């Protein structure tokens, strides 16, 4: 019985993490978003480039996460396309970008986009 419990504990512990987590160095600094540029007037039927310019003071690899309250985002990475939803002509919608390094330190920017 004790052996079974021991084996079970080993299995559970070995399953507790999919991959070893990265431990941030004590001096790790969070990435910084310098600017977010929308490449034109946003209107239904016309996708528009949205580019996030960010840097990491330590030179870490950056990951980008995008969300928009109403509409669709096509693509991934630092440059995506915003496709406006037909519902929202004449209204603003909220868009957000979050930039993370591999230690989960992050910076984010939230902004309003008007749909013409």
């Amino acid at each position, binding site marked *: 019985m004790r052996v079974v419990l021991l084996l079970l504990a080993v299995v559970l512990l070995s399953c507790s993490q999919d991959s070893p987590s990265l431990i941030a160095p004590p001096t790790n600094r969070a990435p910084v978003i310098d600017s977010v540029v929308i490449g034109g007037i946003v209107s239904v039927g016309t996708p528009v480039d949205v580019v996030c310019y960010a840097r990491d003071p330590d030179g870490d690899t950056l990951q980008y996460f995008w969300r928009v309250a109403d509409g*669709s985002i096509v*693509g991934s990475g630092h440059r995506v396309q915003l496709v406006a*939803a037909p519902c*929202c*002509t004449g209204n603003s919608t909220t868009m957000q970008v979050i930039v993370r390094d591999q230690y989960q330190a992050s910076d984010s920017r939230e902004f309003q986009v008007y749909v013409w």
Partner: protein
Amino acid sequence: MRLFFVLVAISGAWAHAQSCCGGTGTFLGGMERAGLGAGTLTVGAVYNYTAMDRTLDGTKRVPNPNGSVAYAHAFNLEFEFAPAERWSVLAVLPFSDKMRTVNISNGTTTLSTQYHATGLSDAFGIVKFSVLPPSPLSPWSLAVGGGLKMPTGQYRVQENGVELPIDVQPGTSSWDVLAWLLGCYRAETPALMTTLSVLFRQPGANINGRTMGTDLQALVALSPTEWELPILPVLLSRWRWTGPDRIGDRTLTATGTFRIELLPSLAMTAWEPLVLRIGAQLPIYERTNGVQLAPSWGMFAEVRSTLTLW
């Protein structure tokens, strides 16, 4: 007994579209059934498929500005229990699988992508009270109820660093208030049961501060009451009005619809107490506020059984 199964069988799938632009879930057959007798339990499963490959501007068909088509599979587990005479509680656990495409050109390149999400959707429940329970002494029956839809479904599903659009998410992130009414009239000549069920849904604000439109659905069902064959035809017609969405006190112009659908179905009662039903969902008339993706056709299937516990 046959009449009871007729009542059970006249259930239909309630498309539960987010009112602007997207996939559907299902309001279940349990919404169109009077309360159960005390000590009984109904367990059911409903599958509903809705294809959305046409776009309307008012009543006119137009090209979709984003090149979008969509579909939604909904699979609901339904439990209804009657703890006391005239009272019953309906609980529904829905799962959904939704997809929408974008196929659009920005002048130099064509963007083509597909959003797809599967998962637990928003559960809901209704407490029913039979004001006039079904009785052989009266052709009329009436039941009322009220309930809540809870934000149990995921609404932050993401793929490749992008959160999926709200209409594809399995959940809506809002609490909705539900009110329900069901009235039945059993005519002797011709031997027909007419059922009217009405569902009112008032959504709360979602995580983005958007309030989906007020939703009012009415379903009229006609089915024969003297029918000796094990396959019972049921003709349903759904009338649905959805008000425009709001963000704060601003109204979103291209939201809100009025729609009439025909839902012919067949209920199989050969394996009592198991009832199996299949049907189609065919649009007859639709008017949208502005440009909206609209359901083009659908189908549904349902299996349910009622058990007497005491």
